[in-house]
């Protein structure tokens, strides 16, 4: 019983399905808003990507790589392969990468026509996440001292 309860608490924060990379690479506890020009919109599997040129207001620009959902997921959240084209201006709300570099995972995109589209990058679309009863963000980073060695259950 105890191991079941412990497991369930652990599982509450587990991310299901095809997490083919760790979403703890992105810090879901904060967001950054980027406004820039689309250099490239890669409508591909396993993820789509927005390459965004963002000015820093001092004459310099940085190219950001923003991960968003696979096409089959994006389509079901109102996207199409033509939603963004090179040269488009767009505002992206992103979860930044923990390393502080110019990459992130898309939370929302605000288009110039006013539409707001879900980033769907974390595989669990936000409406599904509510049903999960768990936060739609990644679990908090474990304590530095946690042990990888599991306990042996009673036979």
């Amino acid at each position, binding site marked *: 019983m105890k191991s079941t309860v412990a497991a369930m608490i652990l599982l509450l924060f587990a991310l299901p399905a095809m997490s083919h990379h760790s979403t703890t690479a992105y810090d879901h506890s904060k967001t950054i808003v980027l406004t820039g020009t689309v250099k490239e919109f890669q409508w591909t599997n396993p993820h789509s990507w927005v390459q965004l040129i963002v000015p820093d207001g001092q004459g310099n620009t940085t190219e950001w790589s923003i991960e968003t959902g696979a*096409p089959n997921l994006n*389509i079901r959240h109102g996207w*199409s*392969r033509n939603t963004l084209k090179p040269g488009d201006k767009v505002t992206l709300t992103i979860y930044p990468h923990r390393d502080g570099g110019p990459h992130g995972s898309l939370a929302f995109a605000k288009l110039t026509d006013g539409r707001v589209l879900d980033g769907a990058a974390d595989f669990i679309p936000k409406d599904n996440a509510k049903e999960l009863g768990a936060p739609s963000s990644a679990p908090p980073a474990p304590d530095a001292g946690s042990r990888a060695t599991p306990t042996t259950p009673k036979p």
Partner: protein
Amino acid sequence: MRTENNRRAPLPSDRRVRTSMNDLGYLVLAVLLVGPLAAHADVDLTGLWRLQSSFQHEIKTTEGRTPPLLPAAAETYRKNLAKSAAGDFSFDKSQTLCTSPGMPRLVMLPYPFEIVQEPHRLAFVFQWNHRFRLVDLGGAPPIVDDLSYRGTASGHWEGDVLVVQTRGLVDTSLLDAGGMPHSEDLQITERYHLENGGRTLVSELTFEDPKTFTRPWKTVVTYRKLPPGTELDEDVCRERLAKGLPAFELDKWK
């Protein structure tokens, strides 16, 4: 015992025989009446099929010529063919990443495929890297939700011929291993019929793409049926790449 007409009275067994003959007659009549209405009903393409005509590294028309490419497309093809001849297939994601080779390459590979046929839909299950395509036979106009490698296919019967129209093909696929390009406007029509007592499947493919070709053109491929009970083997392209083997093992199917 004789009747007044000097014909013997029908015996119960006689009556049964005449009744049976009448029955048979009516049954034959019924079959003949309904036959035309059920014209295509017997055509069942279900089974495993393997390419019988030669594998076309460079796709040719029925006359054996290079398809009529527009100048820009012809230039792209020339460049890709040159790379291919030098062993460089970097232009082809199906060979570098095991991405689907799309249509028509999926139906022109020497790997077997299986057709599973239902009244409303038909599925092609390709042995190569476990791909599939669905053909909707329900008659509703096809809706292209997004461009794809397998395309959006709808089909209908014309007598004994299954006509499949595929559109919505993403333009990052190639029409052959040599690297022939196409646009998003490409429409492929396949006309399938059986020959040889159902042992051979013949497909006439028509390609229409005004952004790539000067006019529509056709090619023909044939398939032979594999013995009943044959199952598709598992094929995992990525395992081949990991071992330094090619994405398409064509020698294996000679």
